[in-house]
């Protein structure tokens, strides 16, 4: 029994130390002799490009993966994790990049599920009190009796954290905790994280590209590049620029050049479009707008205000409840998904693992998702996998997808690299209309810049682009016109260059603009 290794540990003392951790996967060294240390009461950020090895390192510290080389010390004692159960036992908790809750169960049931004590006589009432106490202490606001599917992303995140805390975690590993959260949810989460750190918990949040957050809340920051530690420093000594440079290995320009393109004919016209959400309520209400050749329209809004439904209706994945969609003069309101792809509409979905890719398919087969119907790659019903492999190799190198070979399975890609692959695949179709739903979510600074440039390039090639994003900076710097959306209604459409941040922010919160042309 070594449960007590972290008992009585004091602020500033080393909680976990990893020495010389190395992990190889076929074709890549994901972690290359990493030395890493976490102290009690500190918030330690780990930064790195997509595929730098952050998730791998954390999985090793959590016992999900076994290192090929290297040692882990907890409270000064050498340990050998055989499974996450060992790590949990020693007080380590992890919240994964992709959530793992049972959606038909209540919050309490999820928190208790798999708890070591759950097998014994269960005192639900007591458990509820204890959990409520944790919520109180760290400022989580969750209805414990609600079912998981009723919760927002931020609340789900809180449940995951509560689950680990309830099991007695002293060290909390958060893998990209904010990437699916809205700005206000992010603020709440950060406040909770700080409260936990005050309580001598060591916290390792993982943030790939939201550098301002790293600077605002962390005490120390470790930067990984290609599986190696390039720096470990007090956060006070770092700036956004310096961190970006260390991550990417070169200077990163945070402003991107807005391409000047003559605005052409309208490609997409949307008239009074409405749609219902999965839960049945009217999530999109009477949206009307148009996007022209060589134009980027930015749909600004907090997630859950109808953007998803709009994107899906345009992609043909959801039925319109009313209104019309006209593409290059043709009414496509009832066209099938396949017809839309063939006409030149491209859709980058926000759910990259569930919708945008197939984990058990190779990269080549994943690329085939947007090409299996294409004359160039499929003749007389026979798919030309050789040619597709060639295409995959091309786009993998052009878009810098870190993958040892095009035949590995997509589930072995890091989160950001998968996103790049999806983007690359859709953009290489050269769509006339591109619907990009949160295209830079989970991407590192370098990749974000890269993607935004790719959007600019598509715009120069006369594509019409609908950019859906929660990141107001991104919207303002990339798009030509901005359409804030609130509760399923467009609040107006403004030219991006003249728009005031504050105005747009207010419109995203439901204030209607006065002179916005449709």
């Amino acid at each position: 029994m070594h449960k007590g290794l972290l008992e009585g540990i004091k602020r500033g003392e080393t909680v976990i130390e990893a020495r010389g951790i190395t992990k190889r996967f076929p074709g890549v060294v994901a972690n290359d002799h990493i030395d890493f240390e976490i102290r009690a009461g500190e918030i330690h950020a780990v930064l790195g490009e997509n595929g730098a090895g952050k998730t791998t390192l954390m999985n090793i510290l959590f016992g999900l993966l076994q290192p090929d080389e290297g040692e882990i010390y907890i409270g000064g004692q050498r340990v050998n994790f055989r499974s996450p159960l060992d790590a949990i036992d020693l007080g380590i908790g992890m919240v994964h990049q992709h959530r793992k809750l049972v959606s038909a169960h209540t919050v309490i049931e999820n928190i208790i599920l798999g708890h070591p004590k759950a097998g014994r006589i269960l005192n639900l009432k007591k458990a509820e009190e204890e959990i409520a106490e944790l919520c109180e202490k760290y400022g989580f606001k969750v209805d414990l009796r609600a079912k998981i599917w009723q919760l927002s992303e931020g609340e789900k995140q809180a449940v995951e954290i509560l689950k680990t805390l309830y099991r007695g975690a002293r060290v909390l590993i958060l893998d990209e905790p904010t990437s699916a959260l809205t700005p206000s949810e992010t603020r709440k989460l950060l406040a909770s994280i700080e409260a936990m750190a005050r309580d001598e918990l060591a916290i390792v949040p993982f943030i790939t590209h939201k550098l301002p957050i790293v600077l605002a809340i962390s005490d120390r920051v470790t930067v990984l590049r290609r599986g190696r530690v390039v720096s470990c420093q007090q956060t006070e000594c770092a700036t956004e620029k310096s961190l970006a440079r260390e991550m990417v290995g070169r200077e990163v320009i945070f402003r991107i050049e807005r391409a000047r393109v003559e605005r052409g004919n309208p490609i997409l016209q949307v008239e009074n479009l409405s749609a219902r959400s999965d839960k049945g309520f009217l999530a999109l209400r009477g949206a009307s707008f148009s996007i022209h050749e060589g134009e980027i329209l930015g749909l600004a809004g907090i997630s859950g205000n109808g953007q998803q439904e709009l994107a899906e209706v345009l992609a043909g994945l959801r039925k319109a409840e009313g209104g019309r969609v006209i593409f290059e003069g043709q009414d496509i309101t009832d066209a099938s998904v396949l017809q839309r792809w063939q006409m030149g509409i491209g859709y980058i979905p926000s759910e990259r693992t569930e919708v945008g890719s197939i984990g058990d398919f190779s990269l080549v087969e994943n690329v085939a998702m947007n090409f299996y119907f294409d004359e160039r790659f499929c003749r007389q019903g026979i798919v030309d996998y050789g040619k597709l492999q060639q295409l995959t190799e091309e786009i993998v190198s052009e878009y810098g997808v870190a993958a040892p070979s095009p035949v590995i399975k997509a589930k072995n890609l890091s989160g950001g690299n998968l996103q790049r692959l999806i983007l690359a695949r859709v953009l290489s179709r050269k769509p006339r209309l591109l619907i990009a739903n949160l295209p830079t979510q989970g991407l590192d600074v370098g990749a974000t810049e890269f993607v935004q440039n790719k959007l600019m390039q598509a715009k120069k090639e006369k594509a019409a682009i609908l950019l859906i994003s929660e990141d107001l900076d991104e919207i303002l710097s990339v798009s030509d016109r901005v359409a804030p959306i609130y509760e399923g209604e467009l609040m107006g459409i403004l030219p991006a260059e003249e728009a005031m941040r504050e105005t747009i922010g207010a419109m995203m919160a439901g204030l209607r603009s006065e002179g916005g042309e449709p």
Partner: protein
Amino acid sequence: MRVGAYELKLEKRVALAGWEATIISILAIVFALALFSILFILAGVHPLSAYREILAYAFVNSYGLPLTVNRFIFLLLCTSAFIIPLRARLWNIGMTGQFYAGALGAFAVLLAFGGKALPPPHLPPALVIPLMVTAAALSGAVLGAIAGFLKGRFNVNEIVVTMLLNFILYWLVAHMIKEGGPFMNPGGRGESFELPPSVYAPLIAGTPFTILLALGAAVFLHFLFAKSRLGYQIKAHGHSPAAARYAGISTFKIPFLVFVMGGVLAGLAGYHYFAAVPGVYKIARNYGYFGDLAFYGIICGLISLGNPLAAIPIALLFGGLSVGGRYVQGKLDMGFGVDYALLGVLMITLVAFQFFYRYRMVWMKTRRETVSVDGNLP
């Protein structure tokens, strides 16, 4: 488990090569036979001589071998019928019903050509045989289409539908061949009228030509999944219906098509067993036995992991063991159904061994100074 400084660990496999899967399957078969020896020993029979008898009868003996081959054709068709929907992650539990439907379809053609008359009329084989094959395939397809349509359009559980259709078809066959039924044997023996000799299925070296259909279908399916657009669509739908839909793959078309295709193959099995196997040439009284045997298509399909070519040796093995097992049971006067017991043990071990498809065992060196968090988890 720990031996000295080494510890045996299970590790998740990153990938499974074809030869690794083959070795695992062979080990599983050897293990199953060893396990089953215990039953022979308990029954006072020497296991090696029992296995020799089984294998010799199934694969060498001039009476046993044709039986094996005919079972093999039947099983391979049923396995393929199961595999196609399986690749779309849909469960065809209805090979039995589709098989019955195929038999009924083939005999309906005979009836239409007056084949029931006595003495047996001469029918033009070049016309009637292709028609019988087609009718069998179509009847199976119609049955499959019902399940596929309900799944694709209304998302009705395909397992329930195919199971129910099995029952319905079982009673339909009973109705057709019973006394007074349209297919009744003039002698009224609870079986169907016999095939006129003029339309016996052609034999190739003593084997019904249906073996070509079965092997051809397996090869075709291999090609379908490896190269074709439809195969790609089926696999994509199988892995993730949401992603497939995003890619423009119809969530109606795929379930519908895979069940139609599966139904065609199981329907052909109906033609094969009742119109092409020498010595049968009628819908036999014990047609329910073959209906049950069709379920082994599920087992063979699962063991071969949905690989249509891997299904060939597995169907051959299962066909042979079922024939040989039944034989030694009589020969050695054993008190239990050796064929079913043997297939059962084999099935359980093969499925259990699939664990090693996903995990492998590795010896890890552990260091002395390591604190290990041993077994006393709360």
